[in-house]
């Protein structure tokens, strides 16, 4: 697996992250004023170049690794010794890209984030309500689950998506996901497809992938979890779906719900055969 050797000390890289965070703040201020996003894009390109090989996501992978291996929770077990994310307990190489998949022990199709939450509640004994209280990063806060997902995803970098669509249970969830992308409701009559249903569309300067094409769906899933410049935080696909429902003017999807799994199943299956590039950096 390709992975750039650590070229800087952790402290040095954290310092760079600090700079990134400051930039992220100015970028989001720019966004607030709804000024030209092209400027932010250029700044982003510059900073990405300055980051060179060091990928901020790797810091969260390290944090995730610690959490994965530690005996934790009321049951004092580690995820490494109890959690099957698709290839068997403790097996991580290539696991991210074969999700979402059907898990007989839970009798559910799950994406990786949902699976990790399931392991934390079922195997380690954490309370779902506690985990779901603040599921996404903001400010200096990064949820443990986010680091864990980033850690697991890091073991599939540059591997091809292969969500098991031949499994009838996965197929069923895929079809439901496809229908959810078409469902228009709310005060603005929006569905996912309003913004993501055809090629070459933008909201302001933000490009909107056409999720009904393999290439568009690939754009939708290949970069997450990602360290997002706007806000300077590490975010997962679960967050991306949450924020799109916000823009859709819908109420909030419950954390790790069937709806979100169905959308992730739809996009990942569409992207099958293409290469997963995350976890990395997002604008």
């Amino acid at each position, binding site marked *: 697996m390709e992975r750039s050797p650590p070229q800087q000390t952790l402290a040095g890289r954290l310092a760079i992250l600090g700079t990134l965070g400051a930039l992220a703040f100015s970028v989001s201020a720019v966004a607030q004023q709804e000024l030209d996003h092209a400027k932010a894009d250029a700044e982003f390109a510059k900073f990405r170049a300055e980051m060179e090989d060091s990928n901020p996501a790797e810091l969260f992978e390290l944090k995730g690794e610690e959490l994965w291996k530690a005996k934790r929770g009321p049951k004092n077990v580690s995820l490494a010794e109890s959690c099957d994310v698709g290839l068997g307990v403790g097996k991580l190489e290539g696991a991210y890209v074969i999700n979402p998949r059907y898990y007989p022990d839970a009798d559910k199709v799950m994406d990786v984030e949902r699976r990790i939450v399931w392991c934390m509640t079922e195997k380690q004994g954490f309370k779902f309500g506690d985990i779901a209280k603040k599921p996404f990063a903001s400010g200096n806060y990064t949820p443990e689950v986010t680091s864990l997902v980033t850690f697991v995803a890091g073991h599939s970098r540059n591997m091809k998506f292969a969500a098991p669509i031949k499994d009838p249970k996965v197929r069923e969830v895929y079809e439901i996901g496809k229908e959810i992308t078409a469902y228009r409701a709310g005060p603005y009559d929006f569905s996912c497809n309003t913004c993501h249903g055809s090629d070459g569309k933008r909201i302001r*300067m933000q490009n909107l992938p056409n999720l009904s094409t393999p290439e568009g769906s690939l754009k939708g899933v290949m970069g997450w979890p990602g360290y997002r410049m706007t806000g300077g935080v590490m975010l997962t696909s679960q967050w991306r779906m949450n924020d799109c429902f916000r823009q859709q003017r819908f109420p909030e999807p419950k954390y790790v719900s069937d709806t979100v799994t169905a959308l992730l199943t739809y996009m990942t299956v569409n992207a099958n055969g293409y290469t997963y590039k995350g976890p990395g950096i997002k604008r």
Partner: protein
Amino acid sequence: MTKTTILAALLATPALLGSSIVLADATHRTKAIETIKRDFQPRGQADLDRLAEDGVQAICNRTGNNPSGDIVKTLEADQLAGVKYPADNKLMGDWKAGEKLAQSGRGFTWSDKPGLPVGGNCYNCHQISPKETAYGTVGPSLLHYGKLRGNTPEMQKYTFNKIFNSKAYNLCSDMPRFGHAGALKPEQIKDLVALLLDPESPVNK
């Protein structure tokens, strides 16, 4: 007949659901709707009632945004009938106020403060004034809109109606129904009409 009764009548028409492909999709659609109904929680101003379809949304959702037959004309007329005009009945206001409104992307998300004022969101989807280069492309370019189409009373009325309720002319339009949804008041829509039609507006320079 209300929209809902029209809808009920329509859904009872087997012709609409004639092919087995449509039926297969309908099964998954039903499951999708059940899933959605289970999976959301209210947040901020965004309550669960937003998940319910109104008549127009239901027709569009059930026909892949491509309904046919008399129902389309009937429902478009029904949408048009709901348009409210400014008290003074003038349809062109102040293009400068219109530009400000067109710029603002606020409104109706769970992170927006409830109540007005809500922005127009117009630049999210349309090119409008040549001075604003950060425009979206979900809708067609409106650059030179008035210059190309004129600003006759008919054109003013069409433009006002279109912004108040885009579905009055195109039942499954991707554009929100700003007046119908209570996002923009008739007086604000008037300013947007001026932005698009006033010869002094940068749109028409």
